[in-house]
């Protein structure tokens, strides 16, 4: 019997199992979760011949290392980083063969934040509500990787892609996020809305999978009082009492009581997930 599994040699700062998440349960208080950079996760899955639903690993800045218990095909994408197999350099953004017993090293990201590692057959941890994603807000799905942990790998479903390297977008030097106003722009002063959509922010180091935090002009409210809790969407810009916009990412809470003046276009969120602390950030108003 083949033991298809990866053993965690170095878990890294924060490495989680991710897939396309568990949408459809928000009415029960379940966040959608899933990969923060879905196109990158989909690409590495395609490179190893997986379906787009297969679970991958999402690293944070400093990569991870895994020992293969049997020969497997892997691919690393998302944030560019050095890749080594058995101590030898291997390509990034391409299918790579790892022999039984060899260690795959996903190095520290040279740009961007989150690298993605797909293994042919997918990471086969037990799904929860139809998804294997780690949800750091509610604790659903497997815990973040820890050294020594064994990750089961499923049977490969198709041959790896026959290409040397796949083009991937570079992490943003400046993050430009298109936004549409609403639902609660009337809770803010006209000056606050002008500041939000014309001045430059920076990506804060305090962000995580729940939200991207910002540094920059604080947004003044036009009204006081509390907003009754309402449901939140991916990309919602929530403004807590400190006045600094916070952009909800995959593990965001399903409801919230702070007003949302605008929502980021979903196509711009993968770039947000790859923007390092300090990256200049502009919100650009677009018509619906």
């Amino acid at each position, binding site marked *: 019997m083949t033991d298809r599994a990866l053993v965690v040699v170095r878990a890294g700062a924060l490495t989680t199992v991710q897939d396309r998440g568990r*949408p*459809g*349960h*928000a*009415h*029960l*208080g*379940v966040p959608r979760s899933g990969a923060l950079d879905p196109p990158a996760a989909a690409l590495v899955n395609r490179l190893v011949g997986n379906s787009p639903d297969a679970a991958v690993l999402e690293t944070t800045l400093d990569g991870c290392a895994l020992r293969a218990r049997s020969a497997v095909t892997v691919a690393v994408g998302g944030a560019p980083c050095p890749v080594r197999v058995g101590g030898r350099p291997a390509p990034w953004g391409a299918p790579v063969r790892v022999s039984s017993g060899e260690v795959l090293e996903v190095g520290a990201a040279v740009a961007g934040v989150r690298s993605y590692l797909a293994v042919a057959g997918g990471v086969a941890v037990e799904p*929860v*509500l139809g998804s294997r994603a780690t949800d750091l807000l*509610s*604790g*659903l799905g497997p815990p973040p990787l820890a050294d020594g942990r064994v990750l089961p790998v499923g049977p490969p479903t198709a041959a790896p892609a026959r290409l040397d390297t796949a083009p991937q977008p570079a992490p943003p030097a400046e993050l430009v996020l298109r936004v*549409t*106003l*609403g*639902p*609660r722009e009337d809770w803010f002063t006209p000056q606050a809305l002008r500041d939000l959509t014309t001045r430059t922010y920076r990506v804060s180091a305090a962000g995580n999978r729940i939200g991207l935090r910002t540094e920059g002009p604080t947004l003044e409210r036009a009204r006081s009082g509390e907003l*009754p*809790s*309402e*449901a939140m*969407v991916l*990309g*919602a810009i929530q403004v807590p009492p400190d006045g600094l916009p916070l952009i909800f990412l995959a593990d965001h*809470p*399903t*409801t919230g009581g702070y007003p*949302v003046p605008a*929502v*980021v*276009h*979903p196509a711009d969120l993968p770039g947000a997930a790859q923007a390092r602390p300090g990256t200049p950030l502009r919100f650009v108003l677009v018509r*619906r």
Partner: protein
Amino acid sequence: MRALPVGAHALLVEVASAGQARALHAELLRRRAAGSLSAREIVPAARTVLLDGVDDPVRRAAELTAAEPPPAPEATSVPVELPVRYDGPDLAEVAAHWGVSAREVAEIHAGIEFTVAFCGFAPGFGYLTGLPEHRYVPRRATPRTAVPAGSVALAGPYTGVYPRASPGGWQLIGRTDAVLWDTAREPAALLAPGTRVRFTPVGAA
């Protein structure tokens, strides 16, 4: 009733009361089941219902606000019963707010039929409405860093049960052994929007 835009694929329908939000939520679920509405998420909250994953939110907004939703249908199922030991650490404080004895807090709370208005905060955490306005209590000035699973609590117009240990700022009046959330169970959530709930006192109150 008005519909507010929420990004490219969602809209938020705002109504005047919790009861109207419940009625609208029921109507939207009915339409989705009948195939006349396509939405990935239909999420009720205090005064709103969010539709997420809809194709043309602008067109939908006009449709949805054209007519008031019919009143929510009377529930026909029996309420979920949650056995409670009314011995929470904030029982005396709630009794003082209400101007009654601790024993009477249990009697009053257990005498009300609640309805899950919406869920949030944590998977399986329901915001239950049904308290009369003179029974509303404020949140604790300082939230607790750890509230045990099964804690039955009050805050503002709501009562609720913590599905798992977590930080929390609500006033704790008791504990239940009922399992509110279990992903190995189908359905995982004991309480969903629209579920009716009764608390039954057990043990010495």
